């Protein structure tokens, strides 16, 4: 592909940050908003989070009930497939482990989960990538409630995978037997999405 003389993309990482940045990414101080549709604005009175198994309800929490579950804080780096990386983002929410515990599950009934969101967005994940502290349903960013444009009142946070997996406006987590592709995965983004192996698209190793 032809190189454009003199063009440099955004390169703002410092020397010490280089090894925290996966291949092909650049560090941003912004928090870009990318969306497949209009911002969802669900009032807290109507919000609920459901845990399901193949569409059948296991447990459901209203906002008040959800906020009463054990809260975990986490500072982590996030990586978007569109190549921006943001370091040291600070979140608070309920870990997937604590959600399972609150639902009375000692182990997951199936190997995969589909996250369903207001507005129709979906993304698929192996349960193994949600448990052991790897993922949470986040309600706060930087000690403030997550704004609607960034997925509030609650979004999935799975920072070890590309950020399209950290689904905004999440409402249902549905256990499933097969790793059915979600919204972007069915269009050609990678079924798993590990930024360290640069798994952006379906045929990437």
């Amino acid at each position, binding site marked *: *592909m*032809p*190189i*454009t*003389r*003199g*063009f*440099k*993309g*955004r390169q703002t990482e410092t020397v010490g940050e280089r090894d925290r940045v996966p291949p*092909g990414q*650049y560090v941003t101080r912004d928090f870009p908003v990318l969306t497949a549709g209009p911002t969802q604005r669900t009032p807290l009175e109507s919000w609920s989070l459901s845990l399901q198994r193949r569409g059948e309800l296991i447990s459901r929490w209203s906002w008040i009930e959800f906020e009463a579950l054990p809260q975990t804080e986490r500072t982590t780096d996030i990586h978007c497939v569109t*190549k921006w990386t943001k370091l040291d983002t600070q979140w608070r929410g309920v870990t997937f482990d604590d959600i399972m515990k609150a639902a009375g599950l000692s182990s997951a009934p199936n190997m995969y989960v589909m996250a369903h969101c207001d507005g129709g967005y979906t993304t698929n994940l192996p349960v193994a990538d949600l448990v052991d502290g790897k993922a949470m349903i986040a309600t706060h960013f930087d000690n403030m409630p997550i704004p609607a444009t960034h997925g509030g009142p609650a979004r999935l946070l799975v920072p070890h995978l590309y950020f399209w997996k950290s689904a905004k406006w999440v409402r249902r987590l549905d256990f499933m037997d097969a790793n059915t592709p979600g919204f972007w995965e069915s269009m050609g983004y990678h079924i798993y999405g590990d930024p360290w192996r640069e798994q952006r698209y379906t045929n990437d190793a």
Partner: protein
Amino acid sequence: MATVAAFRDETPSVKTIAFAASQWTGHLAGQHIDIRLTGEDGYQAERSYSIASPGGTAAPIELTVERISDGEVSPFLTEGLALGDTIELRGPIGGYFTWKPENPSPLLLVAGGSGVVPLMSILRTRNKCANRVPGRLLYSSRRFEDIIYREELDRFAATDNSFSIVHTLTRGAPTAWRGETRRVDAQMLAKYALPTAQKPHIFVCGPTLFVETVADQLLALGHQEAGIKTERFGPTGEKR
């Protein structure tokens, strides 16, 4: 691939770049091109820019680019390119937001800032016609110095009885200014938009919020949705 042939400053933050492209087949007024830039590390950025030069097959193709201070692409295009540089360019694109001289309807053009670029392509195309449909441009700019193509537009208005411009400045006007001095609003459109009975062909271009507001108000005045074509630049003024 296209080669930089010339530059022209339009305003302190806006520059026109002329490109020679060997495989250019011509374009319609209102169309755009996609530019792709590739850094040495393989990093790529793509943006769309409206073509400013009149429709037809003549070279060069002109783009008018506003330098967005924290932009990624526009500072490079306006300050980093040199004569003779080549860049990847795809187009022309978009038959939806286009105007052909054979169209008999009167023309109403509403521009917000750099949204004037594709509308200028329409006006330059119209200017080459022997029989010109009546036309009006309502053009919103920040300050007098920010008016892109000001002298050329003044010339069109001075030499063509069937064309008129209404300028409005949103951040202050020079003394002796005779145009409007606020954001385009319902009153301004009611005053200057062509009558609905004329069924004008309307083109609105500029930042998303500007286009939204103007389009809503034109509909409220009774203009037909099918007669209004819109081109929204993203919130920063860059298309996508």
